[in-house]
């Protein structure tokens, strides 16, 4: 990935350095989310954390209630698109935020439990609403170091 003026930056702009598990990256008008893991499922779970970080600090979200999410898609890229959009829809419809994810991927099917709590505007101070996942920089791939990376730009 190369840096472009006003566009993507090669360097992460917000991350979880302790685990190195997720980060966000800059995009001209919006922001990208990226999760890493030893499997696609773990990378998807961490992409979910990066998604939460666009709205608020994931550490501020208490993982109290589980929400079961199921999606299926013909390839991992579309599955990531569906997974993030399912989270965005759940966040919007039920005014939820998620702080922990358990994801299983079996072939074309994803089954997950997203743990979170209702949005508390005073405590979470949400910065922005995420409108949707996009196909921009959408990629699920294994990096040379063996780690899986799941990422895309989200529209805010």
């Amino acid at each position, binding site marked *: 990935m190369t840096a472009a003026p006003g566009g993507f930056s090669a360097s992460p702009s917000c991350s979880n350095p302790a685990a190195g598990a997720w980060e*966000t*990256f*800059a995009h*001209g*008008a*919006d922001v990208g989310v990226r999760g890493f893991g030893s499997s696609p499922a773990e990378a998807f779970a961490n992409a979910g954390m990066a998604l939460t970080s666009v709205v608020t600090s994931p550490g501020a979200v208490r993982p109290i209630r589980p929400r079961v999410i199921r999606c299926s898609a013909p390839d991992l890229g*579309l599955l990531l698109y569906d997974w993030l959009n399912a989270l965005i829809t759940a966040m919007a419809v039920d005014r939820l935020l998620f702080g922990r994810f358990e994801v299983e991927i079996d072939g074309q099917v994803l089954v997950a439990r997203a743990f979170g709590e209702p949005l508390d505007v005073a405590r979470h101070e*949400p910065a922005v609403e995420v409108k949707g996942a996009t196909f921009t920089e959408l990629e699920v791939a294994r990096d040379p170091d063996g780690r899986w990376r799941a990422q895309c730009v989200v529209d805010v």
Partner: protein
Amino acid sequence: MDLSSLVKVGEFCWRVEPVDGMRVPAIFHADEALLRDMDDKVLEQLTNVARLPGIVRAAYAMPDAHWGYGFPIGGVGAFDPAAGGVVSVGGVGFDISCGVRLLLTDLTRKDIEGRQRELAEALFTTIPAGLGSTGGIVLAGEDMDAMLAGGAAWAVQQGWGEPGDLERIEERGRAAGARPEFVSEDAKRRQRKEIGTLGSGNHYLEVQHVGEIFDERLATAFGLNRRQVVVSIHCGSRGLGHQIGADFLRAMVVDAPRHGLRFPDRELASTPIDSELGQHYLGAMRAGINCALANRQILTDMTRQVFRRFFPDARLDLLFDVSHNTCKEETHEVDGAMRTVFVHRKGATRAFGPGHPDLPPALRASGQPVLIGGSMGVGSYVLAGMATSEAAAFSSACHGAGRAMSRTQALKQYSGRKIQDDLAARGIIVKCASTRGIAEEAPAAYKDLDRIAEVSERAGLAARVARLKPLICIKG
């Protein structure tokens, strides 16, 4: 942006001749400085749009163009169904019919002074803004479908606003051909409590004053005068529009091989206008337009109610309501003949020039008001569509300043609290539920709106009428 593949064909017009599968030229309306500031991705995206089936005349970029999703933001493309033309989710955007409306008051800046803080507080507590806010109106079932079919006309019928408002909205406040049945249940669930809310991000409600007038004749025609207080509302179709975008973008990606379509960028996924999916998207997208029009109408009514608590006799008349994320069926001249085409305006404002038959009689002589949103410290512009904009870009103009800096960069560089304090020292009250949200929307994160408005005029797209300066900003 690297200009080596562009040919300068006018002082404010640059062109890329069709190469490598481009069906039409790509035309940029901008000056050299604005072009150089644009990302290379804008060039890539506009030339990709020029490759889509059924595109006619050219793919156009507005002076505020920047990197978008498939289409550049500030991109215009028209497609002829008779020539296999397509409809594209990326050409409309996720926030369907995001737009701006301007309310004209008979108050002056002096009337507001002394009550500015109280008024800001009242607007902030009344206008639902920011993530998680709900409007107190719950819509479901038949009521939801009636809103999606009726738009602002439905809202007025329900008592939010005045029948005269409808004359001052594109398509008289209701997009014909909306098909609520093609809007997913997820989209409707997302909208259940979101009608009458501002949203977040760059959306706002601002109380402004007319700071500068560029054209007295047009200002008079629009009812604008110096020191007058006006109200701008910038928002869109909320969760419903976003979900329609996400649903149909996926469907078009999956369906593309069936139509033999291959795209250089999946974000550019499109489908033939005449296909079943194309017709379903158009029906759902028009329902999304109606949702945005109803939303801005309800917010207008809330604003009027707040103002009347402070100024019982005040008028808040709608000058106009524009949408800058749409696809509309319009008639334009193509190759010497009038043809019905589907004009995508992604981050671009329709800008009908004087005499256009679709303009309300009161505005027909002046041209369509083109409302350009800015950042909270800079204010906005009122422009008027020019006759030359028809040949220049299917009667289109710019829509805003466009970001010069990413959200993450702005967050690193600015403090929301400090921005609030600095603007307060300049007489601008900013109210927002999130100080981080203010930092991400820092005025310095946006491009120079003055230059974009000037270039829009000099490129023959829309003439400057007035510049509006903020007094109160309710941030989404």
